[in-house]
């Protein structure tokens, strides 16, 4: 069965510095990978996804993620963090060729950007 791990419960970064939120996955074959963000008292908002092709995926709000097959990772990145990026971030995976089966989510990483 597929799974994702987000090894950090909390990430703190200074405003203007680059940020990375880590995600590793476990699936058989090439995965479909997703990142979502959740602001306080809100539902999840889609940021970006990797299906195939270019390993660097660009998404909303200046975020990007890099797919690394050898390390089974899909880390979320942003070159310059904003205070407004402070939120809860979730990585999710779906097995390939599985239609639109439910996503499997990680436990989330809370990002705090300090002014």
């Amino acid at each position, binding site marked *: 069965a597929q799974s994702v791990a987000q090894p950090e419960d909390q990430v703190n970064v200074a405003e203007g510095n680059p940020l990375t939120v880590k995600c590793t996955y476990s699936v058989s074959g090439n995965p479909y990978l997703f990142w979502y963000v959740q602001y306080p008292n809100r539902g999840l908002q889609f940021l970006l996804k990797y299906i195939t092709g270019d390993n660097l995926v660009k998404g909303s709000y200046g975020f990007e993620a890099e797919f690394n097959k050898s390390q089974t990772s899909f880390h979320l990145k942003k070159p310059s963090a904003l205070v407004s990026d402070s939120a809860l971030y979730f990585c999710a995976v779906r097995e390939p060729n599985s239609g639109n089966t439910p996503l499997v989510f990680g436990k*989330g990483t809370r990002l705090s950007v300090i002014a």
Partner: protein
Amino acid sequence: DVKVTQSSRYLVKRTGEKVFLECVQDMDHENMFWYRQDPGLGLRLIYFSYDVKMKEKGDIPEGYSVSREKKERFSLILESASTNQTSMYLCASSPQGRGVVEQFFGPGTRLTVL
């Protein structure tokens, strides 16, 4: 834009009550999902549905049931609410047969069972 709405943002119920959480989507999506979100546990899948009157158990279906009588509406039912069902409940939907697409989430219902 896809819109997924949930009937209540906040709900307080008593132990033993029957609770209905409603979810409606307006984009004609075939797939609908119910998750619960708890700190340190992330999102866990309760039930999902690929079509009207169809339902599939997720990872934690115990204590819950669902109903999908119309394509746009997916209801989560707590037959007899218990305090360990205090949680944030998130509904999501996605289309079928349009490639690999993301799920679209509603704003969530924060349920407290006293």
